[in-house]
């Protein structure tokens, strides 16, 4: 077993910074905002660039350049509205960063609506002085919520697989977890065999994945707090595509032990396995809807891969997609009424979005040729997928509104199979004032 387990998940320092972020397409219709450089007191660290980058990546806002600002206030009292109206800015964010009497790093900030001349939020986020990045993401979450009413998802993380030296003798597959923007990449598992299908538990404490360490596919679960892992399914044939139920009690998965790939569920506490589909076609890629009543999955029972829904009690199956010859790997949106999936069009494989009721036509969210593995942020505002660019597997973040796209390019190898985490327990605290 060529395997190294690294259980250093709570570290605050970065191991590597392999990603470069760049804007792929920007649109002028985004709301202009001003994130005024925070006032930085003694021993404190500037977090403004991270807040700036977070809000840009949301696909809702376009932060203006510092150089264009006519004044640099750090409190709402110092804001001269005229200075921001001439710049046509909708919102201004001001603040400061300092170390308090208890030795905590504190970001104090205010979000101001320029058009209404009103302070929307005055708040503090406190955290460890060693971890300004977590503090910055938490500030971004709250600024985003003040401006949109939607919780920010900038404190979330992404699991994915880095593949190095594919087809070479030193081929290496690493299961990674990083911040949603690719920073603070942390290896979880390293193998000379493929690793696939990372899937988060709803509480963010466990990760299920598929590895080939035993020579063929097997499903494992790793506890991210202890670093301990166990085999969940290693039957004859395929063991793949794990998906935790919203309440964490069950995991849906694909087994071919009874002849060909079908959907099964396993009760985590008892290991009792239940067969959900029974069809001689390929049934795979199950995912739960948000109330855990249905599984949405891919099947080629109709002659080509299409997306279906099965009720886990009645086992009744209904088909959800009809357009095109290839619709697969669905992921349910947090509103529980839409889903994103891989759709093949004349120009290639793209990520598409449509409603579960089948009322509206699919909307295409990505424009490359080999797009796959879509995963949505828990607030439903952004999604991430993997694609290929210049012979290299890369990740891309796109706003679900479809207006802004960022590519995360690793310098080390192919990055595949992104899985966006749920909201995670935070190490920083928020105080509204």
């Amino acid at each position, binding site marked *: 077993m060529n395997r190294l387990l690294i259980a250093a998940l709570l570290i605050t320092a970065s191991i590597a910074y392999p990603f470069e972020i760049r804007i792929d397409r920007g649109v002028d219709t985004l709301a202009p905002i001003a994130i005024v450089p925070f006032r930085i007191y003694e021993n404190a660290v500037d977090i403004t660039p991270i807040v700036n980058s977070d809000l840009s990546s949301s696909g809702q806002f376009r932060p203006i350049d510092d150089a264009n600002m006519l004044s640099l206030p750090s409190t709402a009292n110092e804001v001269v509205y005229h200075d921001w109206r001439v710049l046509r800015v909708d919102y201004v964010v001001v603040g400061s960063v300092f170390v308090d009497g208890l030795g905590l790093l504190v970001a104090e900030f205010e979000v101001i609506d320029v058009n209404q001349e009103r302070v929307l939020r005055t708040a503090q986020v406190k955290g460890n002085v060693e971890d300004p990045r977590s503090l910055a993401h938490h500030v971004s979450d709250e600024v985003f919520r003040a401006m949109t009413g939607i919780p920010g998802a900038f404190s979330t993380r992404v699991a994915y697989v880095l593949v190095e030296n*594919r*087809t070479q003798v030193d081929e290496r597959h690493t299961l990674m977890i990083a911040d949603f923007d690719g920073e603070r990449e942390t290896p979880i598992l390293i193998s000379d065999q*493929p690793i*696939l*299908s990372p899937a988060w538990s709803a509480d963010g404490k466990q990760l299920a994945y598929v590895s*080939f360490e035993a*020579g*063929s*596919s097997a499903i494992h679960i790793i506890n991210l707090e202890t670093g301990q892992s166990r085999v969940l399914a290693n039957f004859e*044939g*395929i063991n*793949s*595509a794990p998906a935790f139920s919203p309440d964490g009690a069950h995991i849906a998965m*694909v087994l*071919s032990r009874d002849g*060909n*790939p079908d959907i099964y569920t396993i009760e985590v506490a008892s290991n009792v396995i239940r067969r959900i589909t029974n069809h*001689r076609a*390929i049934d*795979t*890629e199950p995912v739960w809807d948000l109330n855990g009543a249905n599984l949405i999955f*891919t099947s*080629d029972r109709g002659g*080509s*891969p299409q997306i279906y829904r099965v009720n886990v009690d009645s086992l009744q199956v209904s088909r959800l997609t009809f357009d095109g010859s*290839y619709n*697969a*790997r669905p992921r349910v949106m947090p509103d529980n009424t839409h889903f994103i999936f*891989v759709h*093949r069009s004349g120009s290639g*494989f793209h990520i598409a979005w449509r409603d579960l009721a089948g009322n509206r036509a699919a909307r295409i969210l990505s424009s490359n*040729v*080999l797009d*796959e*593995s879509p995963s949505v942020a828990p607030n439903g505002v952004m999604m991430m997928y993997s694609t*290929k660019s210049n*012979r290299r597997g890369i990740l891309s973040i796109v706003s679900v509104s479809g207006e802004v796209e960022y590519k995360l390019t690793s310098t080390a190898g192919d990055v*595949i*199979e992104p899985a966006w985490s749920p909201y995670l327990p935070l190490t920083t605290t928020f105080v509204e004032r």
Partner: protein
Amino acid sequence: MVALLAANYNLRRALGELKYGETYMSHLKNGAWIALLLVCGLLTACASQTGCGTPEEEPMVVDERPAVPEPEPVPEPVVEEVPDFMELPDGTVVAIDSDGSVIRSVFNFEFDESEIGSGDFRVLQQHAARLNRNRDQSVAIDGHCDERGTREYNLALGERRAMAVQDFLLANGVRPSQMSARSFGEERPVDTGSDEAAWAKNRRVELKYE
């Protein structure tokens, strides 16, 4: 004896073509032929205990299938001087043809398909013949896909391809205990390019002798 072997060889070829000329959806119907062959295998095993036959001889198949096309002349499959398998310097084991050349062990497929190409039947039958003569020899049947489409679906598709080859070998006399079908989906390409030529190479089943 030689004539009987040749007839049987041809018969299996005919059976193989019958089975794999059809689509995947007709598996149930084909299952009947597999069952028939298994019955014949049992009868043959009984016969060999009495010392009057080898596992290669399955005369009952001939009785059951009077409508088989007239046998064509085929090369005698058993050649004493050449071994059936050989270990290469890098440790891999390959099947050897009667002229000493390595028998092709990679079989390609169309996109999202698992039907064995008719041009591969004869080569697969050569593998089957060697596995039938060497019951201790086992083979891993590895299914692979190109990078297009989703990874988990491709894992299933790779297994379907491997199963198609396993079923073919089974129908040609190889024992289930000699074979293990596996899938690596799109995770083990032979060509990392993103063009038709690379994809065509990557959609494959590989026979790996162990």
